[in-house]
């Protein structure tokens, strides 16, 4: 019995490694790009940021582009005039529809006298970067690395670092003990069933075996309605929303004006 369990355990680990390893071993190269049309970075900063983008792209196993533009006019592709669609279409033009990747777009003039920072996600990255993680990245970038006081390099670099932290496949630290706690629960469930087999002595609950056949008669039976209560609970919000671009690809993401 014990041998069989060990054999089963071994087989499971084997299946797991076969299932997981290819995902890591997948060495296909991912596109990375820095497009500073707005010219907010010095050539040295561009080189440094591009190296960071390459590194983050490899860590995330997805395409990654950073783009800065003065405004939304004069794009080489068609879009519907919003920052969101500009970012989505920029991604599709560079990396194709529904591939795995992220675009970070900085617009210096969004047409309403403000700057926009926008992150558009595509493919698996839609799920991997949740809305709350994205908002955290923006909060951190705008609060601690504001371009007005620290410059655009620091601002964009903090976003790249934020993506590197959030997007690569990762599990929270407590998932490991949680997994084994659930495993322990399963073990106890099986064992309580097996322990029950060993116990066969207990008092009878009632005398159901000794009811005279056909002796049961119900002389009165009333079901009366009393009252009702309604309770409501908020529906859990979808944690990474998605939309379709004017080019027809699915994207996630969001942005901030500042």
């Amino acid at each position: 019995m014990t041998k069989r369990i060990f054999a089963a355990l071994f087989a499971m680990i084997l299946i797991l490694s076969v299932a997981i390893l290819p995902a890591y071993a997948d060495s296909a190269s991912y596109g990375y790009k820095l497009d500073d049309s707005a010219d907010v970075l010095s050539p040295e900063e561009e080189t440094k940021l591009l190296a960071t983008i390459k590194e983050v792209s490899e860590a995330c196993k997805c395409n990654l582009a950073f783009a800065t533009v003065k405004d939304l006019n004069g794009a080489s592709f068609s879009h519907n005039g919003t920052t969101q669609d500009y970012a989505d279409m920029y991604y599709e033009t560079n990396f194709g529809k529904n591939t795995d990747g992220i675009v970070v777009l900085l617009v210096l003039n969004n047409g309403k006298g403000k700057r926009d920072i926008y992150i558009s996600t595509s493919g698996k990255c839609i799920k991997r970067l949740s809305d709350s993680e994205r908002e955290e990245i923006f909060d951190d970038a705008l609060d601690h690395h504001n371009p007005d006081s620290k410059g655009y390099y620091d601002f964009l670099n903090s976003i790249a670092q934020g993506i590197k932290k959030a997007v690569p496949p990762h599990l929270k630290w407590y998932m490991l003990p949680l997994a084994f706690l659930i495993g322990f629960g399963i073990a106890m469930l099986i064992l309580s069933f097996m322990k029950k087999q060993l116990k066969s002595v207990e008092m009878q609950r009632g005398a159901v075996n000794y009811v005279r056949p056909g002796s049961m008669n119900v002389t009165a039976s009333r079901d009366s309605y009393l009252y009702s209560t309604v309770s409501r609970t908020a529906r859990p919000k979808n944690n990474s929303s998605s939309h379709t671009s004017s080019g027809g690809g699915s994207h996630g993401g969001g942005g901030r004006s500042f």
Partner: protein
Amino acid sequence: MAVHEYKCPCCSGALAFDSTVQKMKCPFCDTEFEVEALKAYDEDLNNEGTDKLDWDTNAGTQWTTDEATGLRSYICQSCGGEIVGDENTAATECPFCGNHAIIMQQFSGSLKPDYVIPFKLDKKAAKEEYLKHLQGKFLLPKVFKDENHIDEIKGIYVPFWLFDSDADADIRFRATRTHAWSDSNYNYVETSYYSVYRAGGVAFDHVPVDGSTRMPDDLMESIEPFRFEDAVDFQTAYLSGYFADKYDVDAEASVDRANTRIKTSTEDAFRDTVQGYVTVTPEYSSVRLHDGKTKYAFYPVWLLNTTYNDEKYTFAMNGQTGKFVGNLPTDKGKFWRFAAIVTAAAGALIYGGMWLIQLL
């Protein structure tokens, strides 16, 4: 004191009740006798017993000290040896010659049982059921199964009180129904409350309550049900070859247990008529019993004893239906080994699954 032994009319050997043929059988000359046919002969033997009674009573005065401590001594009809039993012993065997002895005094007057269910299964069947009982139980220590020695195996007629009663009930339940729907922002649950009333009656026949303190109540209830269809009018001949005790818990003291069981089952039966609700909680219940009748019966039980790690384990088998019960020990080492292996395997699998979800 009177001890009764059924003698074979052919060879004078001691007769015993044979559960396979459901007749009295002489183990020496293999002659079989119908229990009914023996009745007349039985009465003659009773008369013989009366003659001896006087003689024995005179001699019995010597044992009054034993009687004061609850012990009783009887003289074996076959070999003259002394059989010592306690105040409840009703059927036993002679420790010297092994012949079956029935102590008639334990059945005189109001002590005479109304019914007996004769043994349907023999010692061999009990042993087989015991081995079956040990099968397919993963946590049972292997040593326990491998040794499987039985210290003692005994066919015992256990005194039971049987209660017949009609139960009238008025029961009110609080019941709920739920209806769920949702819009884009909220999930809604509407709970409707109902008051459900049921009244009526149900009758119970022969609810047994163990009348012997020597038999654990839970063990005796575990081998239920006994089917009363097989019960016959009591005759001492059925006890031949088995052990028996007379009751030492009277009907009055046993009725509480029967009441509890009847009340529970009555409530359950009416609870089952309340259908179509999500929750049903009893709010008020009144169960009234009437036309109650009590009978005294002997039911057949095989009792097995075994010892493991200096602890005594008792098993019981229903001598009529073959239902076998008895708690078994747990192999603690095996328990924790299994827990560790399953925790490791399931934990690894779940953790792997979490990664897979991340990657896909």
